[in-house]
């Protein structure tokens, strides 16, 4: 397995063995990610964060990951005043970043932006989300959360709930979970159900995903409930939005029907999908999940910059 110098563009670029290796390295990073242990393995290295779209978690956790490894992060303050507004191509922006940093994380509103960036940069590019496309480090931290909470990914029954049509998180995750041999349930209203090509992709594993629109069908069966946001703007009628969103809200009543050790995940930010009263239960793992972004991104940075193998 060769990671040094590699780009992180799409989860599909990684084999199951490679992804598992990343998760194992991430596990070793946890004490340093919590600040309980010092790790200076990327001292003197610079990460450029180029975000053309707002982001809280992805950007902060990359900056934290780089700092926890003794490196530095530099970034663009505001894409609105950046060179892009002046008409610079992404290719030129990336060539500039390459000369300032050892690795670049890019978030862009157009699909395929990171792959394009990688063509123009000899130094590694990490895709921090490209529009409705890929967000591989999110997928890896989701896998890491399931793996650390449940002990293994294979055979886990995972329900993906919410806006499965437009949610890129759900697309990449369903592919990866299928590759790892998890059993998938896609729970969404018919208008927001998983696109056909994603369902096809999710058949890479041996188990075919099951599609339903009723959360109650699956709540008693699953080991992991992965909830995503249903966006208001997808509905022309606000009342219809209220009705649909209400059907998929996770609250204490719903959890009474769940397995004792079922975990609830969410890529955050949440709006109304998970009632705050769920936060205090042992099911809630979404804040751990958000923290896991740090060790997973530390592992990726350390691997592609050659600090670990």
């Amino acid at each position, binding site marked *: 397995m060769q990671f040094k110098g590699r780009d992180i563009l799409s989860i599909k670029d990684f084999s199951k063995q490679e992804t598992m290796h990343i998760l194992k390295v991430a596990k070793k990073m946890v004490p340093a990610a919590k600040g309980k242990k010092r790790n200076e393995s990327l001292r003197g290295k610079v990460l450029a964060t180029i975000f053309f779209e707002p982001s809280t978690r992805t950007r902060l956790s990359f900056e934290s990951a780089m700092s926890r490894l003794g490196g530095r992060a530099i970034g663009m303050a505001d894409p609105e005043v950046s060179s892009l507004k002046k008409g610079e191509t992404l290719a030129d922006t990336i060539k500039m970043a390459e000369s300032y940093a050892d690795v670049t994380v890019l978030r862009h509103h157009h699909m395929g932006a990171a*792959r394009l960036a990688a063509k123009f940069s000899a130094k590694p590019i990490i895709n921090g989300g490209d529009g409705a496309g890929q967000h591989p480090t999110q997928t890896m931290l989701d896998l890491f959360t399931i793996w650390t909470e449940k002990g293994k990914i294979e055979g886990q029954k995972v329900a993906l709930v919410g806006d499965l049509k437009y949610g890129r998180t759900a697309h990449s995750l369903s592919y990866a979970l299928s590759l790892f041999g998890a059993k998938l349930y896609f729970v969404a209203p018919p208008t927001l159900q998983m696109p056909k090509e994603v369902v096809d992709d999710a058949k890479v594993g041996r188990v075919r995903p099951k599609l339903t629109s009723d959360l109650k069908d699956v709540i008693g069966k699953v080991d992991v409930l992965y909830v995503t946001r249903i966006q208001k703007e997808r509905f022309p009628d606000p009342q219809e939005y209220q009705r649909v969103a209400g059907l998929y809200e996770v609250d204490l009543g719903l959890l009474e029907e769940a397995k004792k050790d079922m975990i609830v995940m969410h890529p955050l930010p949440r709006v109304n999908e998970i009632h705050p009263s769920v936060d205090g239960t042992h099911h809630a793992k979404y804040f751990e999940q958000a923290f896991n972004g740090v060790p997973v991104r530390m592992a990726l940075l350390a691997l592609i910059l050659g600090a670990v193998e």
Partner: protein
Amino acid sequence: MRELRVTPIKNGTVIDHIPAGMALKVLKILGITDESSDSTVSVAMRVTSKKSTLKDIVKVEDRELLEKEVDKIALVAPSATINIIQNFNVKQKYKVELPEVAKGILKCGNPNCITNLKEPVETEFTVVSKNPVRLRCVYCERELENIVDAIT
């Protein structure tokens, strides 16, 4: 004796075994519908082939095709053959072949794909399936829905 519907050409290219009805798309690919094109072109449509199926034929005089043009023809007419004619003789004959990667000959149909911005990069599609032809954008990873319309 069979009557020749289209007379032989002295020099140029004969594109044979085009699936019936696709000749006009081949003409579009070759830019022959443009006013700037001055090649003499003969087209035969729905001709019975030796295999008793219907086919189209396009004959373009005094012109040899560019590699990219042949790649584009392979997308709309995967069964086509190209005959290069010199002095009424077939100098070279070959079947078009779908490349593994279609580079710089199609526009991505996804408006949110980065290749639709003014970036200095050629589009790239991997051939997911040859029959029927299915292509996936290397950048946005979306499958191309309408191949014929996407040809540049």
